[in-house]
C-alpha cells in the first residue's frame, strides 16, 4: 500500500515537473516569437516612415507640374469650366443603344475608332515614356486623345524630364545631399 502510494506521488511529481517545463518552454518560444514580430513591426513602421517621406518628396508640386508638362500637358482649370454648379447639370440622358457604347470603347487602332468624337491618333503617337504596356488599349487611346486635344494638336515632343529640384531622383539622394553638407 505504502509502495503504491509512493509510486503514485513520484509519478505525479514527475508528470507535473514535466508539464511545467513543457509549458515554460512553450511560453518562451511564444515570447521569442512575440519579440520577433514586434521587432519586425517596428522595422516596418520605420520603413513606412521612410516611404511616407519619399512619397511626399515625389509629390512635390514642382515635380508634379513638370511631369504634367512633359507627359500630360493638362491645363489648369479655368473658371469658365466651373461656372455650372452640380445642381445646374441636367440628369444623365437615357442610355444609348448598346451598339454605340461598344463602338466608343474600341481600341484606337480599330477601324471604327474614326466614329468617335476625337480623332484618335494611332497608338504609336503615344509618348515613348508612357507605360503604354500597362494600360488597356482603349485607356491608352483615350489618354492619347486627351493629350492631343490639350496639347493643341501639336505632336508631343519626346519627353525629357528637366527637374531642377528633383534632380537627385530619390529620397536617398536627398538624404545623401544633406549628409554631405552637414
Amino acid at each position, binding site marked *: 500500500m505504502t509502495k503504491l502510494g509512493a509510486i503514485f506521488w513520484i509519478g505525479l511529481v514527475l508528470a507535473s515537473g514535466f508539464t511545467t517545463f513543457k509549458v515554460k518552454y512553450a511560453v518562451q518560444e511564444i515570447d521569442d516569437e512575440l*519579440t520577433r514580430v*514586434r521587432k519586425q*513591426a*517596428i522595422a516596418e*513602421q*520605420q520603413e513606412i*516612415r*521612410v516611404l*511616407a*517621406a*519619399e*512619397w*511626399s*518628396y515625389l*509629390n*512635390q*508640386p*514642382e515635380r508634379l*507640374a513638370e511631369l504634367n508638362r512633359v507627359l500630360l500637358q493638362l491645363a*489648369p*482649370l*479655368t*473658371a*469658365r469650366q*466651373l*461656372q455650372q*454648379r452640380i445642381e445646374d447639370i441636367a440628369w444623365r440622358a437615357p442610355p444609348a443603344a448598346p451598339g454605340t457604347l461598344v463602338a466608343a470603347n474600341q481600341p484606337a487602332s480599330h477601324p471604327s475608332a474614326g466614329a468617335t468624337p476625337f480623332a484618335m491618333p494611332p497608338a504609336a503617337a503615344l509618348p515613348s515614356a508612357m507605360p503604354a504596356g500597362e494600360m488597356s488599349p482603349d485607356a491608352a487611346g483615350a489618354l492619347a486623345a486627351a493629350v492631343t486635344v490639350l496639347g493643341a494638336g501639336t505632336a508631343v515632343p519626346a519627353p525629357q524630364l528637366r527637374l*531642377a*529640384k528633383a534632380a537627385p531622383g*530619390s*529620397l*536617398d*539622394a*536627398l*538624404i*545623401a*545631399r*544633406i*549628409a*554631405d*553638407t*552637414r
Partner: protein
Amino acid sequence: MQAALRLDENPCRPRHFRPPPPCTPIVPDERQAALLETCRARLVMTAAVFAVVFLVVALRLAGMALLSGGAAEASAGRVRSLTAPPPARADIVDRNGQLLATTLNSPSLYADARQILDAGEATRAILSVLPQLNAADIHAKLSSGKSFVWIKRRLTPRQQYDINRLGIPGLQFENEERRIYPYADLASHVVGFSGIDNNGLAGIERALDGTVKNSSGPLKLSLDARVQFILHQELTRVIDEFSAKGGAGIIMDVHTGEIIAMVSLPDFDPNHPTAADPKLPPSEAKERIFNKITLGVYEMGSVFKIFNTAMALDYGVTSMAKGYDASRPIRIGRFTITDYKGKNRWLSTPEIFMYSSNIASARMAVDAGAERQRNFLGRLGLLKPVPIELDEVGKPHYPNAKSWREINVMTIAYGHGISVTPLHLVTAVAATVNGGVLRRPTLRKVPSGTIPPGEQVMSPKTSENMRKLMRLVVSHGTAKFAAAPGYVVGGKTGTAEKNSGGRYQGKKLLSSFVGVFPMHDPKYAILTMVDEPKGTKQSHGYATAGWTAVPATGRVIQRIGPILGVPAVDEASPAVARALAIESIQGKRIEAY
C-alpha cells in the same frame, strides 16, 4: 561470557523477538535523551516556518493567477510596447496631410577594426557602395586595430542595405534621428528648421518646439502645399520678370484667420539652411532666412487707404456720397502731398479710393483726427506685434501718442510714416471685408466648421461699403490686371517708395497689392509684395504695383480658385452686381484710369 553479547548480535535469538523501533532508541543515558528531544523540537520549528512560507507563496501565486483579474497579463504586455518609440520630433503636415517635416532614423556606419579580417578587401567592398570615400583613409581606419572607428555618418536606407549585403564582420550601424523636409524650400519660412541636436531653430519648429517634441501625432498646419506652390511660383516669376530683389505673399482665410500660404523670397532649403541654393540669386543666408511676411516691417503705401477710408466711413466723417477736393497739392511744413497722376478736381469717396488720391485721403484723415486714427489702427491690431505661432514677429513702427501730429495723420492716411508687417496688413484687411470681425491669424489648422472667436472692430455696414470700394479698384481702378474672371476679385494697390536712413528713394519701390475674392462673399485675402522691381519693356518702364504685384495676384487667384473650392460665378450676374453696386455713383460714367 556470552551474556556480554548484544541481543541483535546473538546468532540464536528467539524468532519472534523484534528489536525496538529505531526512532525510539532505548537511551539509557538521560543527558542524551534530553539532547535528542531538543533536536526534534528544532526540526518541528523549522518545518513549521517552511510550511508557512510555502503556504504564503502558494496563496500569492493562486491570488495572482486566479483573482487579480488579468492585471498580471496587462503588466506583462507593457514591458515591450508594440510600436516603435515615437521620434524625438513629431511630423509636421499641411492641411491635407502632406508631410512638410518628418524625422527618420538614419544609420551611421562604424567598424570594430579588431574584427576586420582583411582590411584591403573590406575597403574595396565598402568603396563599391560608398564610392565618395577616400580609399587610403578607410584602409588606415580598418587596419588601425581600434575597437571603434567611424566610417560614414548618416547613410541612406539604400546604402545601409547595400552595406549589410556585403556581409563584412566588424561593420556596425548606429541609428541617429534626423529631420527631413521633403518639400525643401516650399514652406521654409513657415516650417523653419531644427538643429543637429533636435532643437527647433526657426519657424514653427522653434515657436512650437515643445508641441513638436511632445505630441504623438503629426502637427497639422493651416498651409495648403498646392496653394503655397502656386504662390511661390508666381512670385518667383514676377521677381524674375522685373529683376526684383525679393518678394513676399500671403493668403488668408478671412473667416477663420488660417494662413493658407506664406511665401517670402528669397528663401532657403531647411534641409541645409546655411548652404547656398544654386537656383537663387546669391544672397546672405541671413537674408534668405529672414521672413518678410512676419518679421519685416514696411511702409505699405496706398494699401493703407483701405483702413483710412474704413475709419472715415465707420466714424461717419464721410460717406459714400460725400467727397473731398483734390485739385491742389497740400503744403504742410516742408512737405508737399501730391497725387500720382492726379485728377485735380473734387473726388467722391469711391473715386478717392479708386484713383488712390493721397490729397483727399489726407484731408479725410485730418477730419477724423489723430486720436480716432490712432484708436482705429490700434483696434485693427496694427500698433502691436501680431500674435501668431512664430517667434519671428516684427514690431510696428509708428509715432508715439505725443508726436502723432497733423503731418503724421496725413502721411499715415496713405501708408507712410507707419511701418507694419505684411501679416498685420492682411489680418486687418480680412477683418475689413469679413463683416468687421478681427480674428487672430493662425498657422495651425482650424477644425472645419468652427469659427474662432473674434472682436468686432467696425460696423458690418462699413465692411460692406469697403467690399464695394475694393471691387471698384479692380473693375475700374488701378488693379484691372488682377481680374480673374469668375472670382470677382477686389483689392487695393500700393506702391511705396522705400525709406532708407530717413530718406525716400524715388527709384526703390515696394509694390504691393492686397486682394480679396470673391468680393461679394469674401473667402480669402491675398497679399503680394515685390521688393524693388525694375520696369521692363512690356510694362512700359513701370514698376508700380499695377504692373507687378497685381497681375501676379490675378494669376494666383485664377489657379488657386478651383483648388480652394471657391465657386466661380458669372461676374455680370444680377446677384453679384447687386451685392457690389455703389448707389452714389449709380448711373454715372466711371472714368477709365
